[in-house]
């Protein structure tokens, strides 16, 4: 569901910590950030630590620990969040393959709701 739209390539760019991409929640409703069990980003095949991902929704930023404890603020349906990923080594400008796995904890689903996407994006 919505895998195609998870990665928003137009929003990809380098930043002071590493790089960032735009991302939409692959679900038909918004959820509190605490329900986002996993955000796993990979870069050119290398899986990056989840603790290095900071999510920003409508101006509010959350690291992994803050996200897990955020019961009120929400990633709304269709909202393009920014995922900022720390990456020490210098990232070459140009095309990169981005992978994104999002795992949601949904009360009425007995199983984890995991969705994955991959896109080639230009990180300028």
């Amino acid at each position, binding site marked *: *569901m*919505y*895998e*195609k*739209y998870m990665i928003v390539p137009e929003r990809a760019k380098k930043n002071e910590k590493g790089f960032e991409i735009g991302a*939409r929640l692959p679900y*038909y*409703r*918004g*959820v*509190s950030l*605490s*329900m986002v*069990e996993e955000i796993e980003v990979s870069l050119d095949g290398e899986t990056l630590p989840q603790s290095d991902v900071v999510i920003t929704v409508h101006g509010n930023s959350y690291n992994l620990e803050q996200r*897990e*404890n955020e*019961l009120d603020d*929400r990633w*709304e*349906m*269709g909202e393009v969040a920014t995922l900022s990923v720390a990456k020490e080594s210098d990232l070459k400008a140009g095309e990169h393959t981005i992978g994104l796995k999002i795992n949601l*904890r*949904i*009360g*009425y689903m007995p199983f984890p709701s995991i969705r994955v996407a991959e896109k080639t994006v230009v990180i300028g």
Partner: protein
Amino acid sequence: MSSNIKRAVSLYSYQEEYFLRKMSLEECIAAAAATGATGIEIVGEQSVLGCPKTPSEAFIEQWFGWMDKYKVTPVAHDMFLDYNKKKGHYWTDEEAVESFKKDIRFARSLGFKIIRVIVNTTPQIIEKVLPFAEENDIKLGIEVHAPWNINSAWMERHWEVMERTGTKHFGFIPDMGGFTRRLPRVQIERMIRNGADPEIAKYVCEQHEKGVMAEYTIYEVSKMSNRRIDMVVAEMSRHNTFVNPLSLVPHMDKIIHIHGKCLEMLEDYTEYSIPYKEVINVLKKYGYNGYIATEYEGNRHIQDVYEVDSVEQVRRHQEMLKNYINS
């Protein structure tokens, strides 16, 4: 035989366009009204920012303005119980009831008379929140969604609360997806695009249509293939159940609302999987007079390769409902 069944649209139906910001909330309402439907249903957490917090005065005013402008009525709000919202902590019944009350206040603020209660809600929680729902004159309806049916054990536990309390504020909301006689073609084709064996998929569809119990089909497929995706196709037969529409009859007075699920509305105004005519004939014959709300859900199965046209799918579904209700 005519009928008093009323028509609504769940804005959930336009989720593809809404997700991609191709349609605004107002445009969704306008599209629903343009079909001739008189009722509006929403998934609050989809359509309203911050739900289930009670919306701002400004939003509420705008909402009722739209209702007037498009001559539609708020019918139902679909709620969830995220009892594992906090990692590692499961809500107590009391925490669940608190969350539930927020949805009741939310629904009331926007004029909804019915809340679609998510299926994992226990009968105990509903019984505990029932007095608050009664005070607010909000009817709670447990969604009867495939693979459950209205006579399933879980639904019987809810039925037992309805009977014992004698309340008028708790009933069933059957989802027409529970009458999936043919497996959805859009879903099967998506599976094949994802690598499922077309021959196995064909076999599963045939067995399903013959009414063969899914366990048999799953067992046979497990002998044909050891690939997970083929088993997922077989398991579709378990999740997309069909039961005799007459199964609704003993509960007709407890059905407070209906979800008109559709995944593929054809040009001839029939749904590919669900024999709507048969189901609606039962509803008419036994006097159902609530709403049927269109709930188009096909987008998720075709969005990978096709342009989604939710507006047209909803239009066709509403035309179909109109024909069957009035014929």
